């Protein structure tokens, strides 16, 4: 259990690890889906190709898009792309890095599906059974069949029970031929994908490594910043609600003329603590301004300014609010008489 927890925590540690986990799960799900799916070739001349290619290509597309949908970074990418520049410049390299990393991960499950499909062979056999070279494998001159008739017979190759062209071309022969080509294609596809992945991985450090490190860092930063912002907003909402309800009870108290108050020493301490957590944002209008500002004008990536000018994070509309709502700090100096 400890091992499981460790793995779980490791995968959760950042968005990329989490996505790797989801990626793996989707690849397994893809293989499982293929084996659970009941393949059902129509065995009719024009339908075979459409069905076969459809099963070969539509589920990979679904899996690819699903890989994007499940990735939280998609909305983050769109947000970063579309936000007003504000005080923080946009870096297209970061956007490109994010997009590439998402696309790479989303490609894994479709690649697994296509490989499994080709290696299994049913799909390929269904799609291309009418294109079998009868001259090579069978008896072309048999009973002078018209093209249409022949295609109808060949279309039934994938369906063992209804195949009636044994004299034209033996079903086993044709099936074996098609499966052989399908598996060859499948292995070539796997080899090609692996080769591409290897090249990308091995050769990337030879080009623009410094720029790559920069993009990677800032894309992680954007991800973490967004998460922390959401967490801070949630914490703030909790504290806001607590204080709101406390005040509601007290107002009710007062309005009903009950005259009960907390002991005066307790009030400033409790309320003071809660108020600290509110970080100076104590009403709806200010919060709305904050949220608008977060989108329209993200703060610059320069921290030392905060120490020098207290609360200068959001310039513009809410400046006077942040100034007046922060608690004042007392500075005490000691003189020693030595």
């Amino acid at each position: 259990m400890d091992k499981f927890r460790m793995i779980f925590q490791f995968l959760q540690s950042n968005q990329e690890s989490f996505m790797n986990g989801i990626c793996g799960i989707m690849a397994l799900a893809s293989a499982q889906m293929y084996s659970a799916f009941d393949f059902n070739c129509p065995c009719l001349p024009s339908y075979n190709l459409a069905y076969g290619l459809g099963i070969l290509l539509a589920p990979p597309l679904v899996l690819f898009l699903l890989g994007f949908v499940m990735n939280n970074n998609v909305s983050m990418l769109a947000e970063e792309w579309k936000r007003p520049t504000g005080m923080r410049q946009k870096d297209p390299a970061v956007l490109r890095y994010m997009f590439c990393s998402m696309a790479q991960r989303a490609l894994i499950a479709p690649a697994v599906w296509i490989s499994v499909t080709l290696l299994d062979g049913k799909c390929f056999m269904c799609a291309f059974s009418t294109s079998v070279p009868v001259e090579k494998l069978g008896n072309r001159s048999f009973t002078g069949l018209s093209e249409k008739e022949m295609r109808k017979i060949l279309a039934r190759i994938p369906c063992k029970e209804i195949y009636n062209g044994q004299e034209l071309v033996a079903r086993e022969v044709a099936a074996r031929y098609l499966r052989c080509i399908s598996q060859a294609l499948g292995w070539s596809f796997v080899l090609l994908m692996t080769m591409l992945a290897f090249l990308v991985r091995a050769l990337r450090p030879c080009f623009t490594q410094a720029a790559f490190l920069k993009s990677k860092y800032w894309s992680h930063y954007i991800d973490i910043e967004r998460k922390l912002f959401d967490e801070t907003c949630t914490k703030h909402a909790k504290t806001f609600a607590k204080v709101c309800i406390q005040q509601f009870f007290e107002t009710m108290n007062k309005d009903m003329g009950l005259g009960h108050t907390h002991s005066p020493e307790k009030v400033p301490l409790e309320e003071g603590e809660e108020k600290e957590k509110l970080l100076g944002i104590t009403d709806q209008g200010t919060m709305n301004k904050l949220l608008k500002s977060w989108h329209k004008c993200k703060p610059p990536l320069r921290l030392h300014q905060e120490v020098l000018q207290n609360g200068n994070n959001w310039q513009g509309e809410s400046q006077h609010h942040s100034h007046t709502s922060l608690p004042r700090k007392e500075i005490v100096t000691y003189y020693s008489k030595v």
Partner: protein
Amino acid sequence: MDRFRMIFQYFQSNSESVMNGICGLLALASVKMYTSFDFNCPCLPKYNMVYGLGIMFLPPMALFLCGLILNRQSLVMLEEWKRPTGGRKKDLAIIRYMCSSIMQRAMIAPVIWIIVTLLDGKCFVCAFSGSIDPEKFVEFANATPTQTQLLLSKVPCKDDELMKNHPARKAISRYLRCWSQALGWSVLLTLIMAAFLARSLRPCFSQAAFLRTRYWSNYIDIEQKIFDEACCEHTRDFAHQCILHFFESMQREIKLRSFHVPREAEVGVKEEDHLRGITDQEQMNKLLTSWYYCKPPLDVSQATQRQTVGGERPSMPWTDSLSNRGNEPQKGKTSRQTDV
């Protein structure tokens, strides 16, 4: 057990996670329900279509309603929609956001049922076996229309005497299953495409408004929870005090009859504080009514200034249009409202 507890805790961490967890469970339940359901096509001319389409669409509706019922947020949303305005204006954008998030989650299990049904194919074959064109299959050339219809409706039943060895049965069945699977994959592809577009294009439109509605809808949810907790706490302390007073009064009676010195019941200062002055039924009822009819405005900046002895109200460092709540006595409905 530890593993389950960890997964459980992860999902409990906030209410969105809880909802995602419930959503996932409903989806799995939907698949399990389908596999354990014993599909039983009637194989009669008019009944097939009704049965097939019924199985395809009625369980999804039930699953959709289940999804709405199990979602705590639907109650929160309805309450927010129907409450009197009171001291806090309503923001329709928040209600719309909550509604759309509830609907999206509730739609997942029904969609999964429909897709699994289509990919499996039994339902589709049952519903549409009577509607195919018999001319596509040569074996029906010599039959009358009614006979053809009867035979076609028996296609889904493998063990039926008439159709068991009919050469066209498998071909028709295969043809219909092919269409059913093509339809299933198309539906899945369309939905995933729509989800992808929605996810990636949403930040391009009104991102600031989105942040705002998300924050406030989260706030409403949390506030409801905390209010329930505060009431629970209050109930417990109220009950405790009630019982203590009862015991005290019993002791006093006993003291009057005999000469025992009663022990002073210790009234916990802490508990009295928790009661916050609300100490009888009417007061509590008034408080709860007021919570519904007149929710407080979203402004907590005047906390410490309210507590001055003698009820003096010092002037505020800044006044803006938002609220001057402390200055007027609170009635059931007020005309002042905080602006959004």
